[in-house]
């Protein structure tokens, strides 16, 4: 399908009200997108701990997506603003240790934006394919080369 190319592994933290509902809508509308991300549902993107993102990279992820509600639309009023601030800081710290900040992607997807969710997934996978595997994972673990999610 995609040949033997590198398939990035992704963890997607999706809030249940917007991004998660948008992902459900992408499903209901049968909008296909690459299967690289494993979704983990949280109530609010504001619950996402920077430590989880770090853990994902340590466990072999090549990218982490955090999906929340559009600014001003957060089900919990302002949770997404807090996320934005935390993730921004996290990206800076990660850059220090050699993890490209683009590997952490924060996206606002509303419950009505199934198409947008599918597009975000496609784009993110493309970008990570271009970036290649996370160097940290390559060194620390004797992974089969570019096993990806199809291992």
């Amino acid at each position, binding site marked *: 399908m995609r040949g033997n190319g590198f398939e990035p592994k992704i963890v997607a933290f999706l809030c249940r009200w917007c991004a998660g509902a948008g992902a459900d809508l*992408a499903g209901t509308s049968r909008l296909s997108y690459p*299967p690289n991300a494993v979704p*983990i549902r949280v109530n609010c993107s504001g619950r996402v701990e920077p430590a989880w993102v770090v853990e*994902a990279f340590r466990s072999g992820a090549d990218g982490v997506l955090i999906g929340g509600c559009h600014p001003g639309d957060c089900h919990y009023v302002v949770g997404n603003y807090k996320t934005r601030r935390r993730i921004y800081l996290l990206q800076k710290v990660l850059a220090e240790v050699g993890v490209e900040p683009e590997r952490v992607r924060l996206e606002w997807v509303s419950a*009505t934006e199934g198409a947008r969710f599918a597009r975000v997934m496609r784009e993110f996978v493309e970008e990570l394919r271009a970036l290649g595997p996370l160097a940290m994972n390559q060194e620390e673990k004797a992974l089969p080369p570019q096993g990806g999610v199809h291992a």
Partner: protein
Amino acid sequence: MAAPNPGPKGPRVGVFVCYCGKNIAGTVDVKKVAEAAAGLPGVVYATTHEYMCSDPGQELVKRAIREQRLTGVVVAACSPSMHEVTFRRAAQEAGLNPYLLEIANVREQCSWVHEGPAATDKAVRIVRAMVEKVKGNHPLTPVEIGHSRTCLVIGGGIAGIQAALDVADAGFDVILVERSPTIGGRMAQLSETFPTLDCSQCILTPKMVDASRHPKIRILAYSEVEEVTGFLGNYRVRIRRKPAYVIADKCNLCGECAKVCPVRVPNEFDQGLSERAAIYIPFPQAVPSSYTLDAKNCLGLVPLTCGECAKVCEAKAIDYDMQEEIVEEEVGAIIVATGYDLYPKEAMAEYGHGTVPDVIDGLEFERLLSASGPTKGQVRRPSDGKVPREVVFIQCSGSRDPELHKPYCSKICCMYTAKHALLYRHNVHDGKAYVFYIDIRAGGKDYEEFVNRAMEDDRILYLRGKVAKVFREEDKVMVWGVDTLTGKRIEIRADLVVLAQAMVPAEGTWDLARKLRIACGSEGFLKEAHPKLRPLEALSAGIFMAGAAQGPKDIPEAVAQASGAAAKAVGILSADKLVHSPEVAEVDEDLCSGCKLCAPQCPYGAITVDEVAHVNEILCESCGTCVAACPSGAMSLRNCQDEQVVRMVQAALAEG
């Protein structure tokens, strides 16, 4: 943290993978998922079923819970928004705490969007992660809460009125907030209503009076919702009552004030086709039955600048010192029925709307047809008051035009245009009407028959096609178009053009939705929790919607929705008790340093801090933002703890 499921044998998780007919099994190798699950640590039982949500499927889950003495269950099936409740109830019936059951979404977020072996691989990962979560879940008991028995209805159009009446008739108090000086909404402006052609005001005003006389309904007109806090059953609302400067109880509607008022501004009720004074009543049957002084246009609220109205008011009803008032109420449920506006004139420049005076919209035409309107029901055109002999109606003006305007169908325009053409013909016997349409959508009871009546009239010509241009030529309005059935160019020298403008959400809908923390769709109409199965509910529990605020709608539909929303609200108001999710934030007092970083993170004011932090379980809405902010790990979200998520992440990424 103590082991979540203590006992000599550790966790005993059961995994139930659903085929969902072909919906999941068509793409995902369901058997393989179950096999993979069976090999996971802590999983003692894994199986599949054709339809897990069916009675036999649920029975399978229940039996396994009992026979296998399960301490946790993962159901790999559709989105948790579909059947989490179903399966948690089943778990409870089998004696397992419902919070020990979780849904792994392998349909919406897997089988429906992927294909091939990768879909199965992803499903396995999703299930693996969920097994880890369930192993860390604790049994919980829902929190019981008291609740208000009052309902707030926002918007006093026909939908809001109907909802208010139904809730009140069921025995509950209603606060009906309307931002204009009277309830009634758009229906009050209409002349006659399709498909029966009964007089709109004649059927509306009795309902308005019923609402105003109902002992359980309190109408707050000329008021707006400022702020909404709280949650299901316990919403706290702040309502701003704009000063009307007229004491409603004293006003006897003599109308002397309006006669002496020197101000003249466009009258909104007549869509600007007439003028009103700064002190006015929108229409004689307005409810509340009182004049209103519009401070924006008044020369000055001090007797020194003008004061004419107060001088002539024998009832002494005018009070220039009236102040804005804030009303605070606790309500258990909220129904939003804020209705619609028409797509603005300026947006339809190609049809000369807004620049050619004899190009008007449907609501303006309603006013020209209405016996209470500016022309007393005689159709006369705005520019010179002449009776128009040739009228062109243009349907889909701004609708179904994704490139330039609105992509959607406004649904009711085919019907009201047919009505307009018929009423015009009743009115002007020798007049001729042309109707441009893309196609006719008359899918309602007796609707097709109604449109046929118009089509069969030999002085109403239906032209299938699009109008390219509308412009003024001398005292005529030129309409250029194409008849797409014959391919012929059409040019009509009309006296009046009526545009069936797209319906759009009422101004301010978006702001209000934000205050309520509910969603709007891309076109700004209120978004329902599920387009098919929960069409009246917002995603936030306890908030419902009715009428054109949710999408273009005619009166019968708006009324039906309103009664439905009322029934939903009554379901909450009449409940013995409401329960609140126990999956809330909690503080480990031994770890908490009292640093106070958490409290300002909470949008609900659920956290107070003295020596240590405390969470109010009822106010907490479980977002977990405070948890992510806590530097000492003292704050946690029940059943979404750090260790759990970390294990989920590891399981999601693990190989093999």
